[in-house]
């Protein structure tokens, strides 16, 4: 477990990795305790940890429900993928930040690792 002072905030990641913020209302000052990558939502439900940032290419609104259920810090879509309109609506209602990176998943995760975001449970 990290010290409180070492825990990264989502807005620091957004700034550093130049992510586009798709949700207007979601709180970006949340703590990011780690990361998880998967495009199978059933797998995310089973294995992601609370406070994780989730890296995926799925744009369906079910992603928001899963992120809410697992209390994730936010969702980063890779390869510049745009979320579906209803996904953004849901995310704004549920206060789940949705961000877009132009990078492919591997590159994005490399950058997150450099910032100290770990995938360990």
């Amino acid at each position, binding site marked *: 477990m990290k010290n409180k002072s070492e825990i990264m905030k989502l807005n620091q990641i957004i700034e550093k990795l130049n992510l586009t913020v798709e949700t207007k209302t979601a709180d970006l000052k949340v703590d990011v305790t780690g990361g998880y990558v998967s495009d*199978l*939502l*059933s797998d995310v439900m089973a294995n992601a940890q609370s406070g994780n940032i989730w890296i995926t290419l799925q744009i*369906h*609104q*079910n992603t928001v429900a899963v992120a809410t259920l697992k209390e994730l810090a936010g969702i980063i879509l890779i390869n510049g993928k745009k979320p*579906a309109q209803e996904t953004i609506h849901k995310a704004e209602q549920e206060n789940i930040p949705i961000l877009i990176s132009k990078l492919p998943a591997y590159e994005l995760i490399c950058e997150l690792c450099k910032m100290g975001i770990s995938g360990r449970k």
Partner: protein
Amino acid sequence: MQNGNFGQEIMLRTYSADLHIHTCLSPCGDLDMSPRNIVKKSLERGLDIIAITDHNASENIQAAMEAAQETALTVLAGMEVTSEEEAHLLVLFDELSSMKQYQLLIYDNLPGFGLDSATIENQVIVNAKDEVEGFNDHLLLGATSLSFQKLVDKTHELNGLAIASHVDKESFSIIAQLGFIPAELDLDGLEISPFMTLTQALQVFPDVNRYPLVTFSDAHFIGDIGKQSTQFLVKQPTINELRMALRGEKGRGLGIRDWGLGTGN
């Protein structure tokens, strides 16, 4: 279909249906899955209705319909289409003309076309005499860029049935890909694969109880045809009748023969 005996009501009867069968057109379908072989085996297994459901393609349906013409078997026009979420959807129509319209939408949104000969030799188009007519040069195992919702909506627009494929499986099922079945999805039914009994499926995925459940073989090999089937209590083997059975309307209904895997030879 015209009822010859005017004024006499058609009775409800049980139709044994396997509505998820691949032909040699599917890259994973065995070469022996030809129209004649499929029709012959379907009749042997006591099936009344089958559907030809190749991956994102429909070129072998007409041949199967022709091969079944002089028999008691009804062949529906089907497809197992892959959504952008990489979930499989079974789409069923009465008419080939509806399928042709659906196919246009699919090919317009299916990346990968003009593949090399080594790839397409597993995607065989045949005629009703089981002769090779050509090869499909689309990437049939790929995913369309259409959402599951869009695929369901288009199916209904053309008066077809939309059934989520093998929802209990870990790959290409709506539950695996999306975690759970989106509430707004207007599905006509869910298919449970031959790998699970209905009872097991209801234990593992209690949520599936919200929908009518069916089970089919998902046959890729001749021996698998009819290993799993669903009984439809209907008046005629048509999409409208099957829809009523799925909804339990006007005395129509469903029954599942839970044979389990590896039996039914």
